[in-house]
Each structure stands twice: as C-alpha cells, then as structure tokens.
C-alpha cells in the first residue's frame, strides 16, 4: 500500500551523539569524516579481514564483529545491533551496499531504539519493490518506462495488446529478478509468446515466482540520476543530476555531474517531480532516482534509498556535504537549503579505482606495496587504503574514488587525466590503466555516450 502523505513520518526526537558505521572501506572513512565534522563520536566495526583498517584507529571505538565473510559480519544485522549496544551508539549509518537498502534492518534498528540514518523501513520496502516503486512514481508524475504497473496477465491476446500499445521492442522481466538476470528483449510481435514462455520458466526456477512484467525496451539509453535530499518536516530539494552511463555489467566505472547535453528545461520538471514524489511518500534523508534517458525523454527505473558511491560528484558541483546533510536529516533537523539555494557549478568526474585485473576484471588481492595519490585544487580522493594495506578478497573490489572538479567538462577531463597519471598503486592489479585509456577516448570526450558504450569499447579494445 502506498503511504499517502508525509504525516505518517513522526518527526524523530531521537538525539544521538555516537554513530555506528555499519560498513567498511572508503565509505566508512567518508562517513567517519562527516560525523567528526558534525561533532559526533563514531564507532567503526569490522570483520576479521578488516581488523587492520586505518579508519579503525581514527574512530572513537573500533570493534570486530564477525568473520571475514560479509554474511557473518557486515550483513549480520544482529551482530551490528550488538555492537551498537556495546558501544552505546545511538544511530547506525549503513553506507551503501550491504544493509543500506534492507528494510528489515531499518526496522530492527528503529525497534532497538536507535536511529537508522536513512529513510524509514516502509519507504525502503516500497522503493525496493519494482512494481510498487513504479506506481508511486507514476502517482507523483515522475515519467516511467512505458508498460503496465502490474504483473503480466496469462491471456495471450491481452499480452499482445499490451505489447502493441507500448510499441516494440519490448522487454520481458521477472518481477523478482535483478542484476540483468531473468529478462528478454522482444523485437517483434512474432517472438512475443516464445519469449514469455522462456522467461516465465527462468523466473520460476531462478526466483521462485513466475510473475513477469513488460516494459518498453530502450535501445541506446543513458543512465541519468537525480540526487534528492529530504528532511522529516516535508521539505525536499534535488541537487542536480549525474550521468552514470559508463558501466560494465551494471557496475558503474565513471560518473559525472552534471550529465552533459541535457537542457535545463528538460531535466527541470523531472527534478521537481522527484521532489514531489519524496514529499508524497514521506521520504527522509538522501536518495537517488535513476532514469534511462533516450531521445530527450526520461524513464524512471528505480530509486536508491541510500547514499550512492558517486555522491561526491554532486557534492563537488553543488558545494553541499551530502553525508552531513543526511545525518542532520536523521537527527530531525530541517533542511538548511531551499531549492533556490541549490546552485550547481562547474563539472565533476569520479573514477572508481578497483583492485582488479584491467584485462579480465578478476579481483586482485594482496598488499599495496607503494601508493601515490594525487593532490591539489579540485582533486579529491576518497579512500581507505595506504601503503602496506592488505586488499582482501572477501569484498567489493572498490579501493578508492578519484574525484575532480573544474569549471568546464573539458577542463575537468584534463584534470582527471592529470590526476590519473599521478596516481600510483603498487603491489596489486588495478583498473587505473583502463581509466587512463578511457579518458583519452574521443567519443567519451564528446560526452553523451550510452550505457552500452563501455562494453563495446572494451570489446573493441580487446580485439585490437
């Protein structure tokens, strides 16, 4: 059921002075910095593999909560709550990944009398379900991918009618699917029923439910995001947009803000619709609306009810500290900015530095023997690594983010090239060489590359 208004969110009167950071790596460092700047104490937690993490030494408390496997530590809700109980933390920041979009975790955190730094459990649950999220967005006037907001009917004739209405090509998706699994593109009417039958069988086997839905398939979309920030008093703003089309297997590699080549009069109404949607569902804290963008039109795909990896590019252009704002919202403070105050300036890029083989993308573990990170005006590095740091094989291969900011996109590209050239990470394999090459690519330099571009670029590069 859709929550009707902001009234359902009782203003949080929970004051806290200590934040437990239920995450690891660069985001643990980033959140710790924000807490310190707000005068809050921090609790860092770790798995056995992260026992030597640098941010453990700078936190007010540091506690190992479980074995290296994420399921036993960073995903272990109860171990996290116990850590909060032991350290007297009054709030939990989930970061991104792990439990950040787990409605059940948000619920048990609140039940334990703690503040979950993020939206409430029902917002997470609503947005986590593809169909209910789409319904909520349509209700708020956010443009969605054409297609019904219900599961596909069994009647073949009805399905045909729906597909025709949407217009081919269409995509059939498993309602419970994700990450590129359980979906099939149909180019023409003649292939519709065969595709449905196959996908239904896959869906039943892979996700335990034969429920499918149908949408318009976009051929060359870009991935555009809108960052929002909301308080619990009914105020919400959007902080501009990002382009995150540079992806490999749904993993973003480079992000930039603003998205190049989108006129303000096109994105403006979409941004306002996002803000409107937040007000309608009583959304709290930070969130990201993800869209596909093709031929001047936006299509909502999903909302991320958490901090994003790529939040720094928006921080660089908007000048706002998104993590601090998120924590303040969780404290129940009213937003300090109005929409008119939000002025995005210049251009920002973020490169995700991964500990992986640049050719076959296999994760690389080991000890970082030497490390040189760039510094200077308009350059920011968010990372937890240091010389001697042991990259463990247990988690995501992201070891740092290189962020630049300059007045124009062209200047920002130059700055990123320079920053990348100055970066040295020895002892393990990284994707630095790939990033360097990407920033020399002409098409990327022109901007407006679509979500398939990187994969094709990699294919061609491999062929060379």
């Amino acid at each position, binding site marked *: 059921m859709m929550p009707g208004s902001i009234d359902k969110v009782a203003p949080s009167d929970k004051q806290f002075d200590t934040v437990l950071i239920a995450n690891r790596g660069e985001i643990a460092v980033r959140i710790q910095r924000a807490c310190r700047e707000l005068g809050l104490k921090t609790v860092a937690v*770790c798995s*056995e*593999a992260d*026992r030597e993490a640098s941010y453990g030494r700078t936190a007010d*408390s*540091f*506690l*190992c*909560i*479980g*074995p*290296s*496997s994420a399921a036993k*530590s960073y995903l272990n809700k109860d*171990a996290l709550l*116990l*850590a909060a*109980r*032991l*350290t007297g933390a009054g709030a939990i920041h989930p970061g991104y990944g792990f439990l950040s979009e787990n409605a059940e975790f948000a619920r048990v955190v609140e039940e334990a009398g703690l503040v979950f730094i993020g939206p409430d459990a029902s917002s997470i649950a609503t947005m986590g379900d593809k169909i209910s999220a789409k319904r909520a967005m349509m209700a708020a006037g956010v443009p969605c991918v054409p297609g019904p907001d219900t599961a596909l009917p069994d009647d073949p004739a009805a399905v045909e009618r729906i597909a025709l209405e949407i217009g081919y090509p269409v995509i059939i998706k498993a309602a419970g699917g994700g990450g590129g699994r359980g979906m099939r593109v149909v180019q023409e009417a003649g292939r519709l029923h065969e595709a449905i039958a196959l996908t239904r069988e896959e869906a039943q086997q892979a996700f335990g439910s034969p429920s499918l839905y149908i949408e318009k398939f976009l051929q060359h979309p870009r991935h555009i995001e809108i960052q929002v920030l909301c308080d619990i008093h009914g105020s919400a703003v959007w902080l501009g947009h990002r382009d995150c089309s540079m992806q490999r297997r749904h993993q973003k590699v480079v992000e930039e803000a603003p998205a190049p080549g989108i006129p303000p009069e096109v994105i403006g109404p979409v941004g306002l619709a996002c803000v409107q949607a937040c007000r309608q569902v009583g959304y709290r804290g930070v969130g990201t609306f993800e869209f596909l963008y093709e031929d001047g039109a936006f299509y909502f795909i999903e909302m991320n009810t958490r901090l994003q990896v790529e939040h720094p590019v928006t921080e660089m252009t908007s000048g706002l500290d998104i993590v601090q704002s998120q924590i303040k919202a969780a404290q129940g403070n009213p937003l300090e900015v109005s929409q008119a105050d939000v002025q995005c300036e210049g251009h920002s890029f973020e490169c995700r530095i991964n500990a992986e083989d640049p050719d076959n993308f296999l994760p690389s573990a080991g000890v970082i023997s030497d490390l040189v990170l760039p510094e200077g005006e308009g350059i920011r590095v968010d990372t937890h690594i240091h010389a001697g740091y042991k990259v463990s*094989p*247990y988690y995501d291969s992201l070891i740092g983010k290189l962020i630049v900011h300059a007045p124009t996109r062209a200047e920002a590209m130059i700055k990123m090239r320079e920053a990348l050239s100055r970066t040295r990470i020895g002892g393990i394999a990284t994707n630095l060489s790939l990033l360097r090459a990407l920033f020399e690519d002409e098409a990327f330099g022109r901007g407006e590359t679509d979500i398939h571009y990187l994969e094709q670029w990699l294919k061609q590069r491999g062929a060379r």
Partner: protein
Amino acid sequence: MSAIDFSDPATIAFLTDALTAAGVAGLEISAPSGQLRIVVSSAGEAKIGSNRSAQPGSVSPVLVRAPLAGYFCVAHRSGSAEVSSLPRAICATDVLGFIRVGPVLLPVSAGRSGTVTKLLAEADAMVGYGAPLFEIEVQS
C-alpha cells in the same frame, strides 16, 4: 621476502582463514624451524598441530578466541579461582570465561584439552570477535 614465522598465531589464523575461504581441507608446511600442519574440519573449525623443531612430544600453543564481541569476563559467580592459577590443566568442555553483552553471558569453552598457560585479554575489557582470550598448550 622475509621468512614467515609459522609459530605466530596470527599467521596460523590467517592461513586458516585463507584455507577455509578457499575451501581447502588442509595444508602442511615444512620449514627449517619445524613443521606446521593445518587441517580445516568440515565444521569450519581449524585443528592446528605443529611440530616445532621436530621434537617429539613437544607442545604448541593454541589460542582460544572470542566467539562474539562483548565484555570479557574471566571468572563468573563467586569468583572461583579458575584462571587465576595458571598454568592449569583443562579439558575441552571446561568453561574458561564469558563474553558478556548487557545482562547476557556467552560461555567460552576451551574447545580442546590441554593446559591454560596465558590469559591474553584484560578482564572486563571490551573485546572484538576473534580476539585472543587464552593460550592453551596442547600436547601433540
């Protein structure tokens, strides 16, 4: 590369973790200082035996680690002299201490027979998961 100290509990623990993660059943390393043999049982708990300097009948230290983060309590109830008199022979089911969270206590049992030789954590201190609490010498 400097020589790895195979008697270092941290090294053994790291190797054990690596073996467990890799799904490898065991490992045997021969070095001038002696032999190390790690067998990862199906339950995931490592049985570690080592034969330092190849002296038959020698003992090797095994660490008893915190099974959970919490406050470490050495003795419980009426302050029995359990750990205060070290070294002390114990059997596998003996409770050596407790991990306390609020009013709840999780007993830490020895897990193996041997002799408790060292107390490695401070009483009433907050310890993390896996923190070494006791050292037991096990007859090889």
